[in-house]
């Protein structure tokens, strides 16, 4: 597989070039067994030898149609499922093979954000409880510390600290996604996996969250794995794009390469399916 260091990445995070990769996935295979009538195992290869590398402070977008295996990839990386074969090196440690004790330490550093934040937020809890649940599991806090911590997290994602006592049901879709990001940030993760995290939001809100993600990247040096079917947003957010189809990465390159010289048919199809109205739109005022 072609792997070029894109010019964008150098520009985005000078110096990261010489840093060791944050995440290195090698030959990842995930196979689901389906039983059929006669008991003969039918196998579904959701991931069929996926390899890529993500450097700290950069964004890799994984783009593909539904059923291409991109969500399976997300669950494997977030340790929600264990891959059938292959290695996932996170900061030099293989999270597939390490013992449970080590994995438990590594896991909080990889946070997953879902498409629909509503279903991952307990409606009976207040925003404060939602935000700090992962922290409280680790150590005790005084009431004052908790409030302070929650306020600073909320501020960081552009939510008013007044939300602290309210239930998440009072938040709009965009606000809930901000809350989900804030909760993920509470554990000070190094890698955020965004599994279709923008897809359910309104266009104008998508833009807000996309900007937030970029702000967080430049201020905290976050690393993103942005999983989406929206190629346009992938180009906007990512340094590199991996195009997936049927459990394989069929093309991997900088956002520019993917746009200008798509090599694989799947990529061309995705580009063709991209609504062309953008050409007619007025250029953004800067």
């Amino acid at each position: 597989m072609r792997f070029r260091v894109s010019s964008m990445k150098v520009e985005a995070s000078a110096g990261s070039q010489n840093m060791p990769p944050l995440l290195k996935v090698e030959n990842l295979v995930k196979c689901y067994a389906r039983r059929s009538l006669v008991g003969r195992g039918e196998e579904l290869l959701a991931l069929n030898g996926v390899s890529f590398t993500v450097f700290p402070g950069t964004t890799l977008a994984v783009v593909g149609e539904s059923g291409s295996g991109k969500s399976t990839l997300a669950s494997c990386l977030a340790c929600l499922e264990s891959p059938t074969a292959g290695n996932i090196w996170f900061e030099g440690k293989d999270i597939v093979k390490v013992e449970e004790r080590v994995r438990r330490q590594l896991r909080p550093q990889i946070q997953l954000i879902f498409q629909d934040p509503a279903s991952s937020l307990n409606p009976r809890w207040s925003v404060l409880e939602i935000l700090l649940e992962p922290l409280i599991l680790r150590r005790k806090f005084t009431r004052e510390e908790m409030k302070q911590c929650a306020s600073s997290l909320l501020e960081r994602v552009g939510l008013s600290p007044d939300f602290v006592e309210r239930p998440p049901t009072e938040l709009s879709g965009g606000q809930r996604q901000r809350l989900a990001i804030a909760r993920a940030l509470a554990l000070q993760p190094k890698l955020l996996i965004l599994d279709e995290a923008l897809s359910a939001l309104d266009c104008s809100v998508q833009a807000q969250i996309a900007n937030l993600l970029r702000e967080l990247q430049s201020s905290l040096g976050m690393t993103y794995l942005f999983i989406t079917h929206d190629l346009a947003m992938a180009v906007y957010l990512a340094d590199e794009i991996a195009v997936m189809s049927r459990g394989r990465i069929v093309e991997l390159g900088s956002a520019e390469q993917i746009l200008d010289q798509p090599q694989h048919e799947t990529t061309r199809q995705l580009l063709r399916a991209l609504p062309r109205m953008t050409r007619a739109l007025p250029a953004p005022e800067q």
Partner: protein
Amino acid sequence: MRYLLRRLSHALFLLAGVSILAFLFTALAPGTYFDEMRLNPQIAPETVTALRAQYGFDKPLPVRYASWLRSVIHGEMGFSFAYNGPVAPLLLVRARNTLLLTITATLLAWGIALPLGVWSADRLGRLPDRLLSWATAGLLVIPDLAVALGLLVLAVRSGWFPTGGMASVDFETLSPFNKLRDLALHMILPVTALVLSSLPLLVRHVRAAVADVLNAPFLLAAVGHGIRKRTLLYRYALPAAANPLISLFGFSIGVLLSGSLLIEVVMSWPGLGPLLLEAVLARDLYVVVGGILGSTLFLVGGNLLADLLLYWADPRIRTESGAR
């Protein structure tokens, strides 16, 4: 298929377990049939000891269980001391009577509960629905025994129905049609008692399950396609609400069965209930074990039937278990 086989093997294990437990507990309970004989001065102690030996009561429990198992295989299921014969034929007649009662009551209760529950769910929160809710709540708090006794009183006062038993004295002389009519007349009271005892619960569950489904997007979509109300309720809502109801169906068979044991005693219906009661009082060991096993068989059968229905009703379960 695999799903059904798995369910069937579960059922078999359950039956074996219940038989061992029933055997153990009845054997551990103080006193045997022969202890009462011993108190009778007309029977010589030697005779009692000989009888004990004949029925294997001098052997350890596992041996007795094994010999009982052997007699089960021979279709005897042990020996009744009180009736002085094998248990199986005795049980069979009684079980048939109980089944007749339970099945009729089950069908009738569900036959009323389904339309009533759907009707009520369709009017959720409106006056008719609220009235029905009150009525079912009222029925729910009256104990089964009170219902049965009340019905008995009614029957005695009015003289409309026979007040007990399964057949009139002159049953054997009746024509086939009149035999059926006589049986039906005798069944009215116990069946009514059983239906009344289980109906409120069923209606409430049907109503809740259907009301739940009536808010589902696919029903709104069906309304949007101009599907008629009747079709909507019975062809769309009811099947979609079926899963919890089918499980309840299996459960309701069990409830009706235990209810019927009680009602049989009160209304002197010659089913398993009175037999079991007599046997327990007389320490007629193998009849007790057989009766318990018979009831368990009904229960397990009911649940198996529910599983089968579920398998038939929900294509998603079919695919899950791999039989496409």
